[in-house]
């Protein structure tokens, strides 16, 4: 009996040895072959238009010009990117070039955690010409004199509108100038009322206005009620947020009224349903949509030439209060280098970043994705591609957002995820409640976000002066 037991124990040991042996070779054969090449790890997000650009255009071009560097591209779904990135950072696995706004908590949190390399000394050393960038856009990723990243994609927030629906009803298009004071919330509302059909029957409705400004706090910007303290976007911290000013209350209530009082907008559930079916604006059942400027490229497959397509145009966000100075939320994504790199690894990463912002690479990215570039020269080319809009008008409305806007709080506020979750949870019921009253709800939201802000500041040992 005992001998048999020993035999089986022996067999088991052999089996585990075999397994361990099988385990080893399956992996790094390719890496071993090309050991003369230095490897660089570039992390990107899944995206049906960006990925082919990275794989088939950017990497081959870079490797041809730098034969001793091999780019390892990691493509991760944006909602899971943080899991992989944090695991890699914790294990000290090489990660060189990436973008902090994808997944996780955004640029400000990574800056505060000390994860981002200050590029300024390298810029100075190489005399890199940074004047090619739109200055407001470059400045977003500069903090206390340190340049933490180079923007490769930027857009404001806009009113996208369905020209075919406007034409059919004989309604005049909205203006293109951000300074046009006649483009007010009330005028937009009047248009929406004219263009809304069957609002109570979502399946057959045409909605005048889908209001989708994000983050939720930014609706106040239109009403000249910017809720953050003056230095919040510089430091990334705030002691409080102002949701109880007259303008803020009016902003949230006006948005609510679009749905329940004026019945020109779908409710939260219908908006989600429209999006779940593929896209609210793309369905052709929405006359106007106010939202972040990803529509520029997300809507680009929609043209009159495809079946079910139509002509669409872009206008500024309306004035909720006369002369509101910052209306547009700007969204800019930068490439960054991980802090702590040195020597050849740093040089290679820097070489790669310089390649990514080079005119050719940026143009290839723009052409592959239709996304707005961050460099003056390329923008002139980008303006040309919208069949239904005059390039000069595209330029006016696109650029106006940068002089009438600020970068989004989700990139500039430390701990944004907790702030966003807090106000979204408390506002969630309000958006679905026909009887909802902003004035009675907002003090609670303000208090809860304020608490979160203080907790975040305390965690990061930030002191307010």
């Amino acid at each position: 009996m005992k001998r048999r037991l020993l035999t089986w124990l022996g067999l088991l040991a052999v089996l585990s040895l075999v397994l361990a042996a099988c385990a080893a070779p399956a992996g790094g054969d390719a890496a071993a072959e090309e050991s003369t090449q230095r490897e660089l790890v570039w992390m990107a997000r899944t995206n049906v238009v960006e990925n082919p650009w990275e794989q088939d255009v950017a990497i081959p071009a870079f490797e041809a010009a730098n034969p001793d560097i091999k780019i390892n591209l990691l493509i991760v779904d944006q909602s899971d990117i943080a899991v992989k990135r944090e695991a890699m950072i914790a294990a000290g696995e090489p990660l060189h070039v990436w973008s902090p706004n994808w997944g996780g908590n955004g640029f400000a949190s990574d800056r505060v955690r000390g994860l981002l390399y200050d590029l300024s000394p390298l810029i100075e050393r190489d005399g890199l010409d940074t004047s090619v960038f739109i200055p407001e856009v470059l400045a977003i990723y500069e903090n206390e004199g340190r340049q933490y990243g180079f923007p490769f994609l930027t857009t404001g927030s806009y009113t996208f509108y369905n020209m075919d629906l406007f034409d059919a009803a004989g309604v005049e298009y909205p203006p293109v100038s951000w300074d046009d004071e006649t483009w007010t919330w009330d005028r937009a509302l009047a248009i929406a009322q004219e263009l809304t059909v069957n609002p109570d029957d979502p399946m057959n409705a045409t909605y005048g206005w889908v209001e989708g400004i994000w983050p939720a706090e930014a609706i106040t910007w239109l009403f000249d009620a910017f809720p953050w303290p003056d230095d919040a976007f510089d430091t990334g911290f705030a002691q409080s947020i102002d949701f109880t000013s007259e303008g803020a209350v009016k902003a949230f209530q006006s948005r609510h009224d679009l749905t329940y009082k004026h019945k020109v907008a779908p409710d939260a559930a219908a908006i989600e349903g429209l999006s779940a079916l593929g896209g609210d604006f793309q369905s052709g059942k929405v006359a106007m949509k106010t939202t972040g400027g990803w529509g520029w490229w997300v809507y680009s497959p929609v043209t009159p030439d495809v079946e079910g397509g139509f002509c669409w145009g872009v206008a500024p966000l309306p004035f909720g209060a006369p002369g509101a100075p910052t209306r547009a939320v700007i969204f800019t994504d930068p490439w960054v280098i991980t802090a702590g790199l040195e020597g050849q690894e740093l040089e290679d990463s820097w070489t790669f970043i310089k390649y990514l912002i080079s005119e050719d690479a940026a143009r290839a990215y723009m052409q592959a994705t239709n996304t707005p570039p961050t460099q003056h020269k390329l923008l002139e080319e980008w303006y040309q591609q919208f069949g239904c809009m005059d390039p000069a008008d595209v330029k006016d409305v696109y650029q106006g957002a940068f002089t009438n806007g600020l970068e989004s709080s989700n990139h500039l506020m430390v701990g944004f995820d907790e702030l966003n979750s807090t106000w979204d949870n408390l506002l969630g019921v309000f958006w679905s409640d026909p009887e909802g009253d902003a004035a009675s709800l907002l003090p609670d939201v303000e208090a809860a976000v304020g608490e979160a802000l203080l907790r975040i500041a305390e965690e990061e040992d930030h002191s307010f002066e």
Partner: protein
Amino acid sequence: MISILPRQKMARNEALWFWLFISPWIVGLILFRGGPILASLALSFTEYNVADPPNPVGFENYARLLQDDIFYKSLKVSGLYTLMAVPLGIVVSLLMAMLLNQKGVPFLGVFRTLYYIPALVAGSVAVALLFQWLLNPSFGIINFLISRFVGEEGLIPLGLSGPRWFFDPNWVVPSFVLMSLWGFGGSMLIYLAGLQGVPTALYEAARIDGAGAFRRFRNVTLPMISPVILFTFITGMIGSFQIFTPAYIVSGGVGGPAYASMFYVLYLYLNAFRRYRFGFASTQAWFLFIIILILTIIALRASRSAVYYESPGDDKMI
């Protein structure tokens, strides 16, 4: 006198064999699984944002956890979900398994396969998105059917209208339960395997005794598959307390409205990967661990008399 020694020896021999049989698991625990689990326990006593090394803080995370309002809300959400999803899941999948185990049903293999298909995609991102749409108050097919059949102008005009599902804090958890029920195929499979193991002779004997369908179910089927029911109950409970992906997708990682979809592990995930509070998230994990462990031990103990095992009487089996 003589018999004592061999019996001791035999017991020792049996114990040796026991260790041999479970040795792969022991090796796996030592090499791969144990370390990370202990590491997470250690991290629960630290402040750790991944970028900097962990900073020991003693029981601070635990103290903070007990003062965290959202922690209590999330515990309630997951608890309620478990309370509803686990028993309902067992009933639905057991019923389906019995239907699919009926002799005389044509194309049984095809039926089994078709009914199993939802389980192939259950818990995935695609299904979460699909249910978000099916249950949409304005566009969803469910509320459309409700209004057509029992709505004001429906077939049976009861004037009922569908709930607002994911948009009504009171209906959020039931909506997720519904989604989980659609994936009943996993447990159904286990029950099917269990039903196959019930000796047909027992049914025949019961039938000869004049037992009806219900009595046969109660006196033969149920006891014979009770070990499997216990299995689905315990693993269902462990899994339900840890449900994450559907809530992450449906709520867009926010957990709303009004924290109604802030499931325990969603809140844990947000703290870990969105807010870089790994220490705190580990504390949450270990708190949940203790809750589940206690509930599991209670279930195992309580089931001793209810679950039928084919084992020698002197053996204290849990």
